[in-house]
């Protein structure tokens, strides 16, 4: 196993949302705008890293039979702590993402990485895996949020101030001015359509890459 493999796994080949298709509940619920997606992505990434590192550190002392309850305990503690910190220091963001933060506890990607990866690998690999799985998840959240916001409201980066402070207000880009809005994109079905399109795009890119690869040896003969 190399770092490059872990990075490739997390971001692309084994992407939490596009390939493993887990943790969809928060993914579909919060991605009505790009900033919402980014906010949940960052929170999930932090928790993935914290839980992966901790679980990797304690993996040798935890008896096999009780590893799952202990993983759940650790993840639940981290999520609760994250929620409190967010409520204390990013209150506006908390108002939007608040109800989804506790959902991270049941986000299968966190316990999934704990069980599949962190409990079997040294801490440096576990850290990179958490980071990269988180990035992969955030990437999809941002793409989906951006897609839905663009179609639904005709803007990008709206309400950036809730994450980056008042100065970020001018980050908002109005792509189509005088846009009537496209309700379906903002409603939950829009999330399913959007995710479906993103998965199709990924599969198409993979297929294209595979075709290219298989062509290359032909020429080399």
């Amino acid at each position, binding site marked *: 196993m190399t770092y490059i493999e872990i990075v490739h796994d997390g971001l692309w080949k084994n992407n939490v949302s596009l390939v493993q298709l887990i943790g969809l509940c928060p993914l579909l619920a919060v991605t*009505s705008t790009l900033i919402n997606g980014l906010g949940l992505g960052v929170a999930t990434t932090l928790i993935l890293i914290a839980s992966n590192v901790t679980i990797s550190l304690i993996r040798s*002392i935890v008896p096999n039979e*009780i590893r799952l309850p202990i993983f759940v*305990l650790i993840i639940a503690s981290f999520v609760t702590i994250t929620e*409190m910190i967010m*409520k*204390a220091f990013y209150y506006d963001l908390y108002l939007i993402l608040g109800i989804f933060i506790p959902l991270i506890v049941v986000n299968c990607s966190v316990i999934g990485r704990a069980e599949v990866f962190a409990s079997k690998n040294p801490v440096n690999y576990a850290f990179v895996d958490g980071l990269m799985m988180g990035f992969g998840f955030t990437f999809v959240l941002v793409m989906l949020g951006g897609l839905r916001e663009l179609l639904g409201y005709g803007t990008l980066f709206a309400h950036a101030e809730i994450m980056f402070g008042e100065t970020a207000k001018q980050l908002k880009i109005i792509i189509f001015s005088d846009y009537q809005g496209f309700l379906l994109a903002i409603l939950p079905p829009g999330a399913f359509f959007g995710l479906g399109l993103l998965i199709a795009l990924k599969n198409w890119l993979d297929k294209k890459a595979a075709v290219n690869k298989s062509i290359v040896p032909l020429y080399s003969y």
Partner: protein
Amino acid sequence: MIKEKMLRSAIMLALFAITGAGLVSLTHSHTEQQIKLNEQAALLRTLSALVIPNQYDNKLFTDTLTVTNDTLLGSDEPMTIYRARKQGKPVAAVLTAIAPDGYNGRILLLVGVNYQGSVLGVRIIAHQETPGLGDGIEIRKSDWILGFNHQSLTTLSKDLWKVKRDGGVFDQFSGATITPRAVVKAVYNTLIYYQQHRDQIFAVKPTQKDK
């Protein structure tokens, strides 16, 4: 042998539970104060959008009472009223009310009224209306809610306290009439409540806030 293993597991689990709970309560004690401040600041921000801060000199935040009136305030739960006074004289009140008949359930709103009974402003605190259609009642999304400013039971007769489709003066949204209709009705009812209970509202001693 098995017994020993079980004991070891139990102790392990307990240790992790204690550590986890310890970390959570440590964070809680460090953030509790800030969270409380944030919640108050958020409410105060809304309140001062309704009653301009230099018009009163009491503590709007603690000079409250709770009342219950399910026909006019929309719920059988106790609702908070914030009272603004200057040098002891009543200036304005901000009433919490519920529009029970929104498209997607209840809409929680704050209605600011001056002593004479004119609307100083209305704000939506919580709702589940359809994004993109009914959520125009939010000040972040549109300025529709400002249409209530300066209105009162005397500026508009009962029949005009309605959305345009029902023959009133308030705009509806294209594709969403139910939401604005519910809000208009709730504001109207709140004003009626205020008119009927004004003297009581300002006379009653502040309700002690339970922690």
